[in-house]
């Protein structure tokens, strides 16, 4: 075969075209296989378990056994508006139960449950002409114990994880303080211990540990109480007012499911697909 410049260029050109075209075809085939059917509704445990044959196929990795527990909370915001002292009661109950430090400096703050304005809690529902009650009152927010928790995915050491009861918990022994989870959480539910918290705990609860400097902490839905059959401290603090209802979302006969059936509820930032377990009656 004679090797001249003309023939070499021809062969080179054709192989380049074939190469480019080939990769495009392969890419498209691969992409076709991996199209994710993510939906914000998908994976809400009980709903799926009841009506669909294969819940796992529809959502995300966390689509757990529909027979397992998935604890959730309904917060009646109106009751918190009616009685502004209620919120403070919940926050204080949480602080006392979990040895949460209280710092003077705002940047050191550790928050498990706290009161905030409507527009901060629900930035996806802006409303220029909001009613006066919403405008002048605050509502409680906390960790949403998402069914699809982004913090768990971000954690490099599995220090934070979703347990069998749907609670997103922390194992402080494993936390290396990288704060990836804080970056991943869209709700700002996590706090980092910049300082040794123990000297700043006002009233020590000797049945519960404190944390150390350099770990991230957050609301646990009072896992240590809930798994003994008790209610979380904030729910307990609301008492008879029923401003907060706690229960198993996967049990169709539970009180929380009854409340959810009877009221229109919203979740925080539903478009992110984190599937929060905390619902708000607004």
């Amino acid at each position, binding site marked *: 075969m004679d090797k001249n410049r003309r023939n070499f260029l021809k062969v080179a050109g054709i192989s380049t075209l074939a190469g480019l075209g080939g990769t495009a075809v392969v890419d498209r085939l691969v992409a076709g296989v991996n199209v994710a059917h993510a939906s914000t509704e998908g994976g809400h445990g009980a709903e799926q378990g009841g009506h669909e044959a294969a819940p796992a196929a529809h959502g995300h990795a966390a689509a757990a056994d529909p027979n397992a527990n998935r604890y959730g909370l309904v917060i009646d915001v109106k009751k918190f508006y009616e009685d502004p002292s209620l919120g403070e009661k919940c926050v204080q109950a949480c602080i006392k139960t979990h040895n949460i430090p209280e710092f003077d400096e705002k940047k050191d703050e550790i928050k498990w449950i706290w009161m905030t304005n409507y527009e901060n809690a629900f930035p996806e529902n802006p409303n220029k002409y909001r009613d006066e009650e919403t405008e002048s009152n605050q509502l409680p927010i906390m960790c949403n114990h998402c069914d699809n928790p982004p913090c768990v995915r971000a954690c490099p050491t599995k220090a934070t*994880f979703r*347990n*069998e*009861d749907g609670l997103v*918990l922390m*194992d*402080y*022994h494993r936390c290396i303080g990288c704060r990836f989870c804080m970056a991943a959480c869209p709700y700002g539910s996590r706090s980092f211990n910049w300082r040794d918290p123990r000297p700043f705990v006002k009233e*020590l609860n*000797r*049945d519960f*540990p*404190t*944390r*150390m400097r350099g770990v991230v902490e957050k609301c646990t839905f009072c*896992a240590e109480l809930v*798994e*003994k059959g008790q209610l979380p401290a904030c729910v307990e603090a609301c008492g008879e007012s029923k401003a907060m209802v706690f229960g198993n979302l996967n049990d169709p006969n539970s009180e929380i499911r009854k409340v959810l059936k009877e009221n229109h509820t919203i979740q925080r930032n539903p478009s992110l697909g984190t599937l929060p377990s905390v619902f708000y009656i607004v």
Partner: protein
Amino acid sequence: MYDSGKIITGLIIFVLLVTIPVWYNRGTASNVPEPELPKDVKTCVLPKAEITAKHMQLLNQWRDEVIRTGDRSTLEIEGKQYPKSLMLACMKCHTSKVKFCDKCHDYASVKPYCWDCHLAPVE
């Protein structure tokens, strides 16, 4: 042997230097620690030899069972139920960290980080 005087002196100095830790600490070895055991309770969750050797592994195992797998079953010791917990089980009998934990830990120069978070009993 040439220069035997210098070599032997040098060797003696070398041996002395190398054995500094042995003769410097002579006679200062302290007694094996005797942690104070609870008076009213005689049985522990494991036999003495095992708990002495493996209490750290047991604590880790309890931690994993309780927070990871949610297995919060209780332990029965002399008819009393205890949760799997350092603060709520171990330290309920061993009521003094100073007279129990620290005795051996100081002797062995180990510094477990338990008490960074967990609360030792009030003494």
